[in-house]
């Protein structure tokens, strides 16, 4: 008897969980999908609202406007790609090197360096001192503000070091007996064994670089410097369109007759453009992301 009620309760529980999962799925996917539909809809028509899954009047005007009229877009895309590639490679290289030194129990500066790296994570100077430092180093409105501040990051060093410490020391010891130098051990044994965690860290930092825009806003916003990025151009559009359009404004725009992009439609198209690269790589790489957070959660 008891068993039967248990089974019933079990089924009810599972139904509840699956309904919840469906809600999670829909509420995650729908907002992206809806934006996609709006970005391909006639902008004036979108202002009337009620667009859900499909465009009502298909139109490419928003994308044409963005690619045709935004004079900064070419520069923005180039800069976004450049900072992601250069910034990621340098960060991963330096984090791996420092992590290796810290993972060596016999290293003379191990204790000091651990603390030196660690405190950077919790003791930050703040925006104003950082701004003054960059201007003293002549970094303001140069590409270096995208690279130099992120040459190394404490969190990544700790993930990498934790992983390296768990590797069997027997391998590197036998390499040493065979006369391998530290550099050779690092390059031929440690790095190949760390490929999974290096992949994770690479993805973290690449997503970070791709998504950043506040550094442009604070330190490189002079249009003459040509340092704008995709995310920053998007921010500008969002900040212009965050207030709702009034009906009068919409009527005005409709009065203009021919198809014209609106702030809303531009913002929709821009959001899609900025999301597509992440969506494109996401299905292939998501397991590395997951690895990473599990590794990172193990305290060293």
């Amino acid at each position, binding site marked *: 008897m008891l068993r039967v009620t248990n089974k019933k*309760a079990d089924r009810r*529980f599972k139904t509840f*969980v699956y309904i919840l999962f469906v809600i*999670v799925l829909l509420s*995650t996917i729908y*907002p992206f999908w*809806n*934006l996609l539909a709006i970005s391909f809809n006639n902008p004036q028509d979108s202002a*009337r*609202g*009620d667009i*859900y899954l499909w465009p009502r009047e298909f139109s490419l005007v928003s994308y044409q406007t963005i690619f045709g009229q935004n004079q900064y877009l070419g520069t923005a895309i180039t800069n976004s790609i450049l900072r992601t590639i250069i910034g990621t490679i340098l960060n991963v290289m330096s984090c791996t090197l420092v992590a*290796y*030194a810290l993972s060596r129990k016999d*290293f*003379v*500066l191990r204790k000091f360096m651990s603390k030196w*790296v660690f405190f*950077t994570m*919790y*003791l*930050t*100077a*703040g*925006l*104003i*001192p*950082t*701004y*003054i*430092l960059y*201007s003293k180093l002549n970094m303001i409105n140069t590409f270096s503000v995208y690279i*130099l501040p992120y*040459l*190394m990051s404490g969190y990544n060093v700790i993930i990498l070091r934790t992983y390296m410490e768990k590797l069997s020391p027997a391998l590197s010891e036998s390499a040493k007996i065979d006369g391998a*130098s*530290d*550099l050779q051990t690092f390059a031929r044994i440690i790095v190949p064994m760390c490929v999974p965690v290096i992949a994770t860290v690479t993805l973290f930092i690449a997503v970070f670089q*791709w*998504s*950043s825009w*506040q550094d442009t806003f*604070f330190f490189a916003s002079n249009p003459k410097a040509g340092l704008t990025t995709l995310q920053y151009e998007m*921010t500008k559009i*969002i*900040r212009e369109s*965050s*207030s*709702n359009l009034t009906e009068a404004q919409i009527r005005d725009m409709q009065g203009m007759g021919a198809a014209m992009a609106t702030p*809303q439609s531009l913002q*929709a198209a821009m959001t899609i453009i*900025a*999301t597509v690269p*992440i969506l494109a790589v*996401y299905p292939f790489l*998501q397991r590395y*992301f*997951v690895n990473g*957070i*599990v590794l990172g959660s193990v305290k060293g």
Partner: protein
Amino acid sequence: MSDNKHAKNKNSKMANFINMLKKQKFLLAITVPFIVYIFIFSYLPLMGWIWSVFDYRPGKGLSLEEFVGLKNYIDLFRDSTFWLALRNTLALSVLNIIFSTVAAITFAVLLNEIRPNFFKKLTQTVSYLPHFVSWVVVAGIFINLLRLNGGINNLLMSLNIIDEPIDFLLKGNNYWAMITSIGIWKETGWSAIIYLAAMTAINTELYEAAYIDGAGRFKRIWYITLPEIRSTIIVLLIMNIGWVLTIGFEQNLLFGNAGNFEFSEVLSSYIYRYGLKSREYSYGMAASVFQSLTSFVLIMTANRLFKKISNESVF
């Protein structure tokens, strides 16, 4: 005789040390440049804090004439906008910590109760996705959904929850709830991973024993799953305490406007507006010092308390 031996010992110790340095020249070569790098980019700016007791003007050196003592701090603590910003920062932080943690743990518990299958995997994979899109993109998405004729107003009206569309983006008293909810939408799936990882480490015998004793599903969750992941929860809470005073800036820049200023202004945006935009460097510096030092003290205290209670520490 013994003196001689001692000296010899010392000498050989020194020699050993130098030998060690020579042996570790590769490790030193990769570490020393980064010691310098970290010094310049992380610790040198801390020295800039001293300007908070001067009347700093860019391009001028420090001189005693410009020394103003605690004037900037007194001005700061007398400014009502500062207290407003502090209130909003704390409110957003506390709401975020409580609701995000509860949401993530709940999601993890539910996932943990379901045997692996395609649908579970799909839900998990999709739920991480918003973590990887930037706040800019998230703002683009939610500004679209939250406008007067947007999806959320339409949904609420068709469910008869509201009669008239709400102007979420301009109405200040919605701001905290809006940002907290968006934060939950963005991060719950991702944060659940850590809790799930902790749950997979729980000894299954505990569950079997409880099952034999007749404990139902909810009792097992309450008396086994949650207590077993307690230390994970505490570690994450402590790490979050370090960010309590710094959050809310990006959201303020993206969602903030004149309509919700009273609720969206946070410490970081306050520092930005006074310190950088209106070039009151010394004043902004005082606010920066307050923010960074308090954060540091908070996390160190939290860690010490945690150490005392559980003999463990985050770092």
